[in-house]
């Protein structure tokens, strides 16, 4: 009994930081409608800066002052990011903001290692609170008691701030209707910046408060952000009270889950989240969101199947690609195979995102499941490559069936966050369940059959599978299923009214995308000869997103172009610089700000901007000519009178 109480207290102490970070994320989202992925990075920066300050200035003042100053410094950095980056993209679809803040996260990861080095750092103990006191004969750290009291205190302070100050009233008003607040004479720019600074302050404080409890590491950003996403999904985005309750719930589940299922403790949290989502899709204290801004389908130009000319062009490109093994060496061919694998991966994500309007931030889950599926088939059933390539994707499909069922109940950022959480849970299972997956050591010895074991052979196999896969996905876009999917994306209500079951259609699209990602993953396993948890990790999901966005989210063929350009660039960058994350993050940020329509979108805009040829006037030009002709006719009539 007393052991359980101690465990519960430890959970409550962990909840404090989680609540601070989650409430910051929630407050920022409430007003700016931005899910700040960089929140984990600010949490980490808070810890690092606090470490430096408390290291330099000893004593109680140095320690407590250091925590506070660190949080303020990081809050200023957050405000700077808001002013320089986010102000430019408030009007952009939600996905772009999530991606831009992810780019910042990548950059911070490299910067932190540059400044503080790659080793874990041990912070000082809190002066005066370094001891422990005994409860039922067991020791409880005094610092934990402070944290347990701090959570409710911050909750109370935030309540006072939002209900007893003019600033708080304005923030609550802006949470509901930003335009109306502006019409009443409030400068939103500074409101947004101050809200952002407060949210980042809370995240940094959450990180700074951790230094007496745990080591400071350069990967603490991703581990907290996933937990925070789970917390806000359970508690409801935008609700501070919800963040508090859910933070306590998740922390207690972690504290006790480790007793029940020590290997895969995330599972208990996942189960609770699943139940909450089924009962209350917008979280315990959240409110159903107004219609989310469309992430795709905002283009005026309708999609058309390829013309004969375009088809011939594609056939020529495929033919040239097939001739590549005749002229290039093994390294170029293995790079070529890898690029092709990612073309299929990006195309599958594109199908879900652009055609289905479902912006997944966890598409790596299905890629990785496909890879692990193939590896399981080889390792545990002794299956040959041909069978494993067929069996592997089934695991991707199974994951899509299960996760998709939950995810399609949500939309917009909730959907994105939930897909990310599922992917991260899959990752932690692969990482922690060492007996089956080999954990960090992965599964080795996944080699192709003899006929495909040469770089040429495998390249041709990959090319064949990818060409057929991309062609199938493209045919689906212009099939009745594809039309129904786009209808559900553009107007869920009207689609339902004409008899399309929107959720079911989206679920099916989720499965299609998951299966094709699984095929890409299975190919990837045989290309590398091994499978590691990284195939399921967040950077893999984001790679897919960047490929789709780089190509152009509003286009049908953007994903293919984006994948080729991005993968080639990434492989080249890796060989050129140690700071690939910094460069890559910078590129993502730049891309989102400068080319929101991507390469193919940019080219299409350019193509359509050219004046039509004199003989081949399109319908638009013809209509214009007709309206211009009309006044001339009237003038003639009047002249005749």
């Amino acid at each position, binding site marked *: 009994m007393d052991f359980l109480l101690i465990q519960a207290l430890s959970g409550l102490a962990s909840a404090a930081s989680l609540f601070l970070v989650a409430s910051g994320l929630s407050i920022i989202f409430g007003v700016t409608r931005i899910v700040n992925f960089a929140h984990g990075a600010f949490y980490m920066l808070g810890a690092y800066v606090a470490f430096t300050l408390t290291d330099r200035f000893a004593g109680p003042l140095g320690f407590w002052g250091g925590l506070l100053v660190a949080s303020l410094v990081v809050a200023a950095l957050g405000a700077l990011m808001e002013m320089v980056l986010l102000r430019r993209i408030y009007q952009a679809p939600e996905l772009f903001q999530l991606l831009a803040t992810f780019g910042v996260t990548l950059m911070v990861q490299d910067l932190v290692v540059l400044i503080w080095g790659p080793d874990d750092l041990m912070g000082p103990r809190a002066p005066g609170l370094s001891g422990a006191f005994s409860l039922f004969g067991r020791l409880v750290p005094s610092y934990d008691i402070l944290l347990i009291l701090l959570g409710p205190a911050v909750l109370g302070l935030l309540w006072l701030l939002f209900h007893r100050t003019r600033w708080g009233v*304005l923030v609550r*008003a802006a949470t509901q209707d930003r*335009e*109306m607040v502006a*019409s*009443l*004479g*409030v400068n939103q720019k500074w409101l947004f910046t101050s809200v952002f600074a407060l949210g980042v302050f809370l995240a940094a404080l959450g990180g700074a408060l951790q230094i007496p409890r745990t080591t400071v590491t350069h990967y603490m950003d991703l581990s907290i952000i996933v937990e925070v996403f789970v917390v806000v999904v359970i508690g409801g985005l935008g609700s501070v009270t919800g963040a508090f309750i859910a933070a306590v719930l998740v922390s207690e589940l972690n504290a006790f889950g480790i007793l029940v299922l020590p290997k895969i403790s995330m599972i208990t949290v996942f189960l609770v989240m699943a139940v909450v989502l089924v009962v209350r899709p917008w979280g315990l204290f959240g409110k159903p969101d107004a219609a989310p801004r469309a992430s795709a389908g905002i283009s*005026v130009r309708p999609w058309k199947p390829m013309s004969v000319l375009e088809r011939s062009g594609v056939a020529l490109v495929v033919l040239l690609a097939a001739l590549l093994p005749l002229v290039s060496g093994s390294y170029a061919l293995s790079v070529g195979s890898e690029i092709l694998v990612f073309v299929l991966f990006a195309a599958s994500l594109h199908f879900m995102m652009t055609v289905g309007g479902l912006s997944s931030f966890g598409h790596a889950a299905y890629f990785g499941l496909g890879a692990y599926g193939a590896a399981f088939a080889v390792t545990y059933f002794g299956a040959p490559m041909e069978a494993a390539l067929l069996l592997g994707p089934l695991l991707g499909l199974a994951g899509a069936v299960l996760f998709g069922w939950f995810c399609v109940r949500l939309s917009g950022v909730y959907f994105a966050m939930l897909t990310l959480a599922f992917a991260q849970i899959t990752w932690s299972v692969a990482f922690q369940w060492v007996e089956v997956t080999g954990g960090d050591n992965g599964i080795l010895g996944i080699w192709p059959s003899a006929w495909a074991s040469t770089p040429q052979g495998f390249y041709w196999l990959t090319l064949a599978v990818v060409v057929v896969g991309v062609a199938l996905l493209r045919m689906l876009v212009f099939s009745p299923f594809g039309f129904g999917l786009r209808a559900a994306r553009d107007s869920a209500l009207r689609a339902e009214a004409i008899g399309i079951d929107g959720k079911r259609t989206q679920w099916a699209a989720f499965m299609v995308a998951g299966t094709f990602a699984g095929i890409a993953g299975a190919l990837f396993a045989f290309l590398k000869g091994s499978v590691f948890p990284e195939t399921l990790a967040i950077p893999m999901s984001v790679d897919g997103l960047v490929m789709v966005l780089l190509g152009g989210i509003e286009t049908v063929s953007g994903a293919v172009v984006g994948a080729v350009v991005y993968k080639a660039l990434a492989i080249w960058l890796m060989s050129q610089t140690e700071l690939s994350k910094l460069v890559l993050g910078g590129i993502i940020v730049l891309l989102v700000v400068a080319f929101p329509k991507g390469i193919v979108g940019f080219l299409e805009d350019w193509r359509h901007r050219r004046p039509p040829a004199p003989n081949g006037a399109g319908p638009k030009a013809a209509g214009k000519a007709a309206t211009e002709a009309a006044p001339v006719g009237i003038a003639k009539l009047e002249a005749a009178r």
Partner: protein
Amino acid sequence: MKLEVSGLNSFYGQAHILFDVAFEVGEGEVVALLGRNGAGKSTSFRSVAGLVPQRTGKVVFEGEDVSRLPPYEIARRGLGYVPEDRRIFTELTVEENFEVGRQEPRPGVATWTPERIYKLFPNLGEMRKRAGGHMSGGEQQMLTIGRTLMGNPSLVLLDEPSEGLAPKIVEQMAEAIMTMKREGLSIIISEQNLHFAKLISDRAYIIEKGRIRFSGTMGELEANPEIRDAYLAV
């Protein structure tokens, strides 16, 4: 002139909504902008308030061209906007809704306090702590007007204040508008309800399919029933 709008063209995406709309409001005048549903009344007001991003044309308020200013700057110059759909902050109490609208006193313009607004709309005074979402349509209409008055405007754009209200509340609304006029406010009000407009307005414009079709005094409109029938009658 208090407000001079000229050559106003507004677009929503590809759709051209307003065509060279022009109207004026004199100092202390109450002007009605009349028209059927979808004629362009709300878009005209939203354009003046700076809420339609795609627009061209001039909006001169107190001698200054405000057409390039962001909405909050326009509001801070004393041009108040009361939206058609009220847009109450439903989570906020009556008092808090007023607080959002509050601006510093403006020289030469009537200064409003919550107490003065409770005198104008006595119903609101009885529910100061009530959340905006728990109020009737009429009470919300009073609240949205009061909220804009808290910014001490010298001109108010009132978008269909009588819409969907019980006749008794409409009467109360007309009285309140007359009080605002006596305080020296210039008012432009959009209406479908000709009788309501007649009660309070000095002059009227008629808008139809995004174009101004008529401009004149209420008397002139009265004398031309064919105009009324062409553009207003159902």
